[in-house]
């Protein structure tokens, strides 16, 4: 018994030495050639890596290699990952996620998962193992798609004017537009706004009153409210296309019945704002209307002949093949009068495996909800 437990400790030692060696090699690479360039993992390199990770699941490995799929190794790796992530979360401006040591630990986690899954596959019993399989295969898929798979991901920004068709995109940060295998025609850009609000503003500091807990009255005809001792009512509100919103307001100071009336407007890209002075310090003013929703009516064409039309909106992208088109922005200085729409185009051929992984882990976590801490 004594010698057996000693041997067990020794083998754990071997695993710790191997993990340390790999991490040290990562640091060495980091110092010699700098951060990991994800470009080296693009297709087909990541696919080959994927096949290698499948081997321990498909074939029975020899005992010493199987050790690397043990729970012990998973605890060591998880601890290291946690520590690395804490560094990532505490130190500003770090680039841990593109560093070699992190990439190697990430890889070892995938190897550990693959071997652990391989061991379970050999003695698989549905009733006992389905939770384990969903969680671990799902996680492996997700880690793979989000890690090596993400090397194939491309993100482009495309600015399209209303009525125009555009096929050139820009990477964030870069200036030269590049022709993409996908084109967008912008038929219409539409934006709904929340009504702007009437506030009492300190002209020196710009702070809305009362300081720290400002009160606003919505600029909607008939709306009333009390701000810092003034009973404010919005008599009329006018917001025509291309014009700045204007509200006619009247305000009565509750303490002495003093009455002020006048127009206020937040102005826009070519009209001046208007305020209604209370005294030298304070005035009534209007806030800018905030976007409620914005969307673009588009037609999308791909080089291989696919066509699609529809509406792109925040939280509702359009999919064409492996491309997803997102509503990203618009001409914010013009707000709802913007005549351009900015899209983000994301190409991710590994999205389906990633979603499959997410779905499996979600199902797996449901089994956690039902089974609780019962040991498998």
């Amino acid at each position: 018994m004594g010698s057996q437990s000693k041997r067990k400790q020794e083998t754990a030692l071997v695993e710790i030495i191997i993990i340390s060696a790999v991490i040290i090699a990562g640091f060495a690479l980091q110092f010699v050639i700098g951060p990991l360039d994800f470009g080296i993992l693009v297709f087909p390199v990541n696919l080959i890596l994927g096949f290698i990770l499948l081997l321990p699941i498909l074939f029975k490995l020899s005992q010493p290699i199987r050790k690397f799929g043990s729970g012990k190794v998973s605890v060591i790796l998880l601890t290291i990952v946690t520590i690395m992530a804490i560094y990532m979360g505490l130190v500003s401006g770090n680039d841990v996620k593109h560093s070699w040591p992190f990439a190697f630990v990430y890889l070892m986690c995938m190897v550990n998962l693959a071997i652990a899954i391989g061991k379970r596959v050999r003695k698989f019993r549905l009733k006992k193992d389905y939770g384990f399989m969903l969680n671990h295969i799902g996680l492996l898929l997700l880690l793979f798609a989000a890690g090596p798979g993400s090397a194939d991901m491309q993100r482009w920004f495309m600015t399209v004017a209303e009525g125009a068709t555009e096929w050139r995109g820009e990477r964030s940060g870069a200036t030269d537009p590049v022709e993409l295998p996908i084109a967008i025609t912008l038929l219409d850009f539409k934006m709904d706004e929340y009504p702007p609000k009437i506030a009492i503003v300190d002209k020196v500091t710009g702070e809305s009153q009362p300081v720290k807990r400002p009160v606003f009255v919505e600029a909607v005809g008939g709306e009333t409210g009390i701000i810092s001792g003034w009973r404010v009512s919005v008599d009329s509100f006018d917001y025509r296309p291309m014009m700045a919103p204007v509200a006619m307001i009247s305000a009565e100071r509750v303490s002495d019945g003093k009455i002020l009336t006048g127009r206020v407007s937040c102005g826009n890209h070519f009209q001046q704002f208007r305020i209604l002075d209370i005294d030298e310090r304070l005035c009534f003013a209007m806030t800018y209307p905030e976007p409620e929703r914005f969307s673009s009516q588009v037609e999308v064409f791909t080089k291989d002949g696919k066509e699609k039309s529809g509406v792109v909106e925040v939280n509702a992208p359009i999919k064409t093949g492996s491309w997803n088109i997102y509503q990203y922005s618009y001409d914010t200085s013009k707000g709802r009068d913007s005549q351009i729409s900015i899209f983000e185009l994301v190409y991710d051929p590994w999205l389906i495996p990633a979603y499959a992984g997410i779905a499996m882990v979600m199902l797996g976590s449901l089994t956690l909800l039902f089974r609780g801490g019962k040991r498998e």
Partner: protein
Amino acid sequence: MTWNEFIYFALGSLLLWTFGTVALYRVKKSFTGELLIIAGLLLFSTFIGLLWSHIDHPPLRTMGETRLWYSFFLVLVGYITYKIWRFKWLMAYSILVSAAFIFVNLLKPEIHGTNLMPALQSIWFVPHVTVYILSYAMMGAATIAATITLSTGKKRESELMPLIDNLVHIGFGFLVLGMLMGAIWAKEAWGDYWTWDPKEVWAFITGSAYLVYMHAHYAKISRKDALWILPVAFILLMITWLGVNYLPAAQGSIHTY
């Protein structure tokens, strides 16, 4: 149906839920309590349904409307979890948190006008946050139980250990669901399901710390030693939830609204 009638439905539901929970503790058979809780849920969902048809779009645009869903789902999921695990305290807790959201809606009605920015207008908003609230409750309870076990020694170990393991595993289930719903939502809103945004980094840290606990027995770490992980993991969880916005590394996070 408008917000003006909310008070009747809200107080009615709260009364039903409170009596229901009291009945769970006092009445031998759980039937009465469960019936009252279900009645409260029906009453509350009636309001949501009527409000929905009145404003003609899903009530998911303003903060007040979002809180309405939290109040509902907290009790619903709390009840389902109670059905499976019979944790009466969890039923009481979820009603308490739900009541807090209801009272914010009742006492600060001007909040109804607070605008929800377009990225937050998603069907994932409510479930994403709700399951996290439940996960935090489970993990909080597990941490308390772990602290008791660590300070009282052997005596309560056998009694509390299974409870702690159940809580951590269920809490982790909710945690993962919250994280992955967030990932799907992020893909729809920002184009990528994981960007190592500071909030995501800390959610990852929290998740992996609990995974260390859940795998500790494979590494032949004794149950008692493993318990020390739980208070640490809970501190990490608190940083994720409340502290991230104050960290220097988190300036410019897309999660600080």
